């Protein structure tokens, strides 16, 4: 864990249902996380993922949003794309010059445990910048096998024009 590096990598391009929230404060992040939990548990969506994977997404949302608000600032935006294999989550803040810094030999009483948790819950993760903005992203598994997650091949067809 002490060797964790948060790689510089562009946000993956994924097609799927997109959820987006603006997060002015950590209290908004709490509210949105509870809203997200309710959405994920809705019967129409719950069959696409395991309970453990949904809890994982809520944890990753919490850690990346609190990092963005604490170390990033600016207008913080959270984006979740639901894809057949799981989710892509992207947190954007206004501090392109402060890269994600996983705790290395930092006293855990002062925090810094969030990114190592995210790394363990994710299949893939990274960060990138554009002028004035920083994106920190992670890809999470649904916990379902591919056969269960993609019952109909037509679901991968492109969006309607």
């Amino acid at each position, binding site marked *: *864990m002490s060797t964790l590096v948060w790689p510089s990598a562009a946000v993956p391009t994924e097609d799927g249902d997109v959820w987006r929230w603006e997060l002015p*404060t*950590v*209290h908004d*992040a*709490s509210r949105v*996380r*509870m809203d997200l939990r309710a959405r994920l548990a809705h019967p129409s969506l719950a069959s696409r993922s*395991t*309970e*453990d*994977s949904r*809890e*994982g997404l*809520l*944890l990753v949302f*919490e*850690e990346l*949003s*609190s990092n963005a*608000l*604490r170390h990033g600032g600016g207008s913080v935006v959270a984006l979740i794309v639901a894809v057949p294999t799981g989710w892509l989550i992207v947190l954007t803040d206004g501090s392109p010059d402060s890269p994600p810094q996983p705790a290395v030999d930092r*006293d*855990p*009483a*002062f*925090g810094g*445990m*969030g990114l*190592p*948790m995210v790394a*363990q*819950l994710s299949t893939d993760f990274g960060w990138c910048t554009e002028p004035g903005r920083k994106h920190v992203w992670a890809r999470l*598994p649904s*916990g*379902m096998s591919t056969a269960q997650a993609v019952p109909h091949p037509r679901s991968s067809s492109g969006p309607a024009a």
Partner: protein
Amino acid sequence: MNGWNGVLISTLGTTSDAAPFEVTLVDGPEDGQVVAQVRGELDAAANPLLQRSLLRALRQAARLLTVDLSGVTFFGSAGVTALVWLSQHPEAAGKHVRVVATSRVVTGPLELTGLLDRLDVQGMPGPAPRPGERPAAPGS
């Protein structure tokens, strides 16, 4: 720890604009012991008040503080950090802080942060992973 028969000392909840959580302090079962029953969502928004609540609980306990997380419904790294902070606090000298963790919502983050060895945790199902070991993929 559910159905505790001790003496209720106090209940402290969050204000309406914060993540909802509640800490109830109960005396006992022996002299110098206090149980802090924590319920609700422990996240970054809750953390400042959670730390104050836990420190207040620690001051009530002359010898042993048991932090019972059985009623916690969300447990982020901020919650783990608060427990480590409490157990290392100067006012914890000469006292013991014990954590009761029974639900996966709480045991998962404790394992993921690798901080189990920094805390006295009871109620964990199964052996803890070795430091640096990747846990099984979620759902497997």
